[in-house]
């Protein structure tokens, strides 16, 4: 997993609420056995017509946002399925951070496993960031994970919360499985206790 420390980039405004995982990556692209290559189909049905032509109005097709690295989104971003193809597609496109008032739990969790930082901010801050993002490519937003701040193009800075363990893993690009396997003795002990307590399980 790529580390995430500090990012300065273009933020794309996507104010629609309830952007679901079927919008982020429609099911026809889930038939892959790889993690990579999904960026071209990110937001596929919002981004292209049925014959594959770009829909010019869609934000990531606009010249200012084609290389966006941050999305400022409406409420409940990532609702729907557990497909990790959603963060894989965002990452493959180049998105490293999504900021919204709320995220669906499974999507939120999946982001951290892939080096993407989802940030929850109150409505009034999202409103400011959304307005900043609408200014286009010259308005670059800075996300500093170490300091836990988001700074707009005109220097307004906002603090955000993030779970300590997740922050540590993101900053260091750590693999959860390796960390858990260090606790193999605890898992062995639990299994012994459990076999006695709940032998049917």
């Amino acid at each position: 997993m790529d580390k995430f420390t500090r990012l300065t980039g273009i933020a794309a405004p996507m104010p629609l609420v309830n952007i679901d995982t079927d919008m982020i990556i429609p099911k026809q692209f889930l038939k892959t056995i790889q993690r990579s290559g999904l960026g071209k189909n990110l937001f596929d049905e919002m981004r292209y017509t049925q014959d594959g032509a770009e829909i010019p109005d869609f934000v990531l097709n606009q010249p200012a946002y084609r290389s966006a690295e941050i999305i400022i989104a409406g409420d409940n971003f990532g609702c729907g399925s557990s497909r990790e193809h959603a963060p894989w597609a965002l990452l493959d496109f180049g998105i490293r951070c999504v900021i919204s008032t709320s995220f669906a739990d499974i999507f939120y969790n999946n982001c951290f496993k892939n080096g993407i930082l989802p940030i929850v901010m109150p409505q009034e801050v999202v409103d400011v960031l959304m307005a900043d993002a609408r200014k286009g490519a010259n308005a670059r937003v800075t996300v500093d994970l170490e300091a836990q701040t988001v700074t707009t193009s005109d220097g307004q800075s906002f603090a955000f919360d993030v779970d300590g363990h997740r922050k540590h893993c993101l900053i260091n690009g750590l693999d959860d499985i390796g960390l858990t396997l260090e606790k193999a003795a605890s898992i062995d002990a639990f299994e012994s206790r459990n076999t006695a307590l709940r032998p049917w399980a």
Partner: protein
Amino acid sequence: MTAPRTLYDKIWDDHVVHQAEDGTCLLYIDRHLVHEVTSPQAFEGLRMTGRRVRAPEKTIAVPDHNVPTTLDRANAATMTEDSRIQVEALDKNARDFGINYYPVSDVRQGIVHIVGPEQGWTLPGMTVVCGDSHTATHGAFGALAHGIGTSEVEHVLATQTLIQRKGKNMKVEITGSLMPGVTAKDITLSVIGATGTAGGTGYVIEYCGQAIRELSMEGRMTVCNMAIEGGARAGLIAPDEKTFAYCMGRPHAPKGAKWEAAVAYWKTLFSDEGAHWDKVVTLKGEDIAPVVTWGTSPEDVLPITGVVPAAADFTGGKVEAAQRSLDYMGLTPGMKLTDIKIDTVFIGSCTNGRIEDLRAAAAILKGKKIKDGMRAMVVPGSGLVRAQAEEEGLAQIFLDAGFEWRLAGCSMCLAMNPDQLKPGERCAATSNRNFEGRQGRGGRTHLLSPAMAAAAAITGHLTDVRTLM
């Protein structure tokens, strides 16, 4: 004496392997269900790192999302190349890693969330995960069950644990009894209508109350299945005699002395009097009507007697979303929901693909024909549900009415197999998501119960099933 605990607290406490100072827990997983879409990258990860599956005996795989449901599916040509590769990858991974497997050719194959309970893998008090958000279904047994992403699938395969932080407790109580024509699907949709699709985010929901107690296990699975559509990762229902009766004698349920010990433990699985709830929602069972969705979010729910709303009826970001939904769905504000014409009916999915669902639909269809030009299909949730429905004569009722009678799979719920809507087609579906493009690009989905789907198939428009009873 310990403080009063909720059912969720109790299951959680019994599965904590390790707790870090910041509250992050390593949680033991009793059952790991696997399907072909969200697992290939996880198995590949194991291969690349030389890791094995820690508990293959607790890992159960079945292909369901991609598989064709037509009778000729044994012929590989019925599958697209990429679907076939995914299913073959699961065949190989199940073999290489020695996990329990129900291949397409096995009569027990079906939707993972129907196969798990049917085979007795899902039992009260367990932790159950799967790379699929509708894992919430298993909560009907009083099991803590939720969806995970592929990185977590790999984590569970390698360690039989998950890194978790505890969620909050939410109680959803349905008091009293349901009125005739009202089903578990109407309960679960009505709850989402009341709380919104983010209302349960960060919570585990326990459904309780007389109307929940009165549901069969099939109905309880329908309710918990859609907890995720309300934002909650997991839904729970405390186990009772109905739960024990359902589990007893299933292939992987305990037997003899182990069964007795299990039931004694299961009887401790309820929320204590005085336990703390972070949020409580109460609906009266008798107030719940047969409902349908009009928009492209499961929270867009109305009683069938209602009319299509206008975007101006909403506030905030929902105004734009509602307008987008109305445009996508091709609906005019003010029109009666019962005037919405339907051209496709889909009965099936992990929400409503069980035997009771097929009985409810068949009861409405018996001796009737579907509307001319209607495309209607029943996709049983498993090969065993299909066999039972044939034995009970339900299959013949569907066939006589003009329905297609399919083999088991996820099918048109998410349209990863050949069962899809074309742009502009409008489907009455017993599945769980009405998102844009969910059943096929440009396809329009109205979610409803199996009985309501059967009613729509007969009349050709959304219909109050109570008028046909």
